[in-house]
């Protein structure tokens, strides 16, 4: 299990924001992405997740291995916690949501409607989705937003267990997760040269509808 990236350049809104990114992540390793707001952390993660094409460079990842957790949790307010998770378990073809519920301390909230959860509880539900995907590569975009200290520690434990099971994680965060063993990639060093225009992929469609 390995995620390796070389010479990667990513663009947002037709402007290249990062270029020359290279790293290799093996099973059991985590990499923390750092950088100020607007540095391109989300853009990089979306590119790795396959939601947008890379401007240049190579992404080598095993097929069907990546689970992406975005800013938005994709929770349906009118469904219960269990129903939300069962849906994703069904989509990914994995069985059982109990481990995920326990992992993110959601057992007591199992039958509550997601609409009645607090922001932190929703976030925990969103992160529990990662556990039901059963996928080895986690791409996490600010996973600790609206989590309290205890929940951050809980989540760090979940990530550590994932890593010790041979998984790998790429985490964009400003908060110290307490993952001492994780590498850190500061995106400041990969900032694209000013005025570098995005290449052929810049979307005329985006301009028309932007």
């Amino acid at each position, binding site marked *: 299990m390995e995620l390796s990236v070389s010479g990667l350049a990513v663009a947002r809104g037709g402007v290249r924001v990062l270029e020359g990114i290279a790293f290799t992540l093996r099973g059991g390793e985590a990499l923390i992405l750092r950088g100020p707001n607007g540095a391109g952390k989300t853009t990089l993660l*979306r590119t790795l*997740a*396959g*939601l*947008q*094409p890379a401007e240049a460079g190579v992404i080598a990842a095993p097929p*069907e291995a*990546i*689970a*992406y957790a*975005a*800013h*938005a*949790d*994709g*929770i*349906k307010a*009118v*469904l219960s916690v269990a*129903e939300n998770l*069962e*849906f*994703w378990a*069904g*989509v*990914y*073809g994995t069985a059982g949501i109990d481990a995920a519920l326990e992992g993110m301390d959601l057992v007591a909230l199992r039958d509550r409607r997601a609409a009645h959860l607090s922001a932190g509880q929703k976030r925990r539900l969103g992160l529990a*989705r990662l556990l039901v995907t059963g996928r080895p590569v986690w791409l996490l975009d600010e996973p600790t937003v609206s989590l309290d200290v205890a929940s951050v520690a809980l989540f760090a434990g979940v990530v550590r267990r994932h890593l010790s099971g041979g998984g790998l994680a790429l985490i964009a965060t400003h908060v110290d997760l307490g993952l001492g063993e994780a590498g850190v990639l500061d995106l400041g060093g990969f900032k694209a040269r000013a005025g570098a225009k995005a290449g052929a992929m810049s*979307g005329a*469609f*985006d301009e028309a*509808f932007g």
Partner: protein
Amino acid sequence: MLRLLTRDLRLAMRAGGGFGLGLAFFLLVAVLVPLGVGPEGVVLAKIAPGILWVGALLACLLSLDRIFALDFEDGSLDLLATSPMPLEGVVAVKSLAHWLVTGLPLTLVAPVLGVLLNLPVAGYGWLVVSLALGTPALSVIGAFGAALVVGVKRGGLLLSLLVLPLYVPTLIFGAEVVKRGAAGLAVGTPLLLMAGITLGAAALLPFASAAALRVNLR
């Protein structure tokens, strides 16, 4: 796939899901038109096929932007796009779910509303047949329009403008089937043409919709 279908149906049925919105609109049209046009049976019988089809079409249009917009707003669409399900399959399933909560109920209540509009007896069967064959096309074409405008705030107007021209052939052939059926004429030609549109749209448009979604998710 089945999970997505049951989830979408469940979301539509629960509070605020929009089930019944199209149905209520269809009902209103069928009730208000006789009041506006007047009680003359002959006039009503003449315009009934057209009114019923236009009503069904607009009722369908009403709920189109919900197909993808809600999933886009809460981030589910991103997550579905990165899930093992092919996006074409997601689009097809969501179109089917849309048809099940709008097109199918419209088809089932249409005969009842036909009574209000004094539709000739011979037309009832063809009304149901034509709606059953035509409304799936409305859902599939609508899903394509919804995929095109998914990132646009207040995309409803743009969606209507994009989709209405594509709805015209279905409307013409659908109303023609009912008109001919009510008059006791042969309905084969418009019925086959409409079925062709539906099958073609269902076979091809999910791919176009998925491509549009991919562009919009970037």
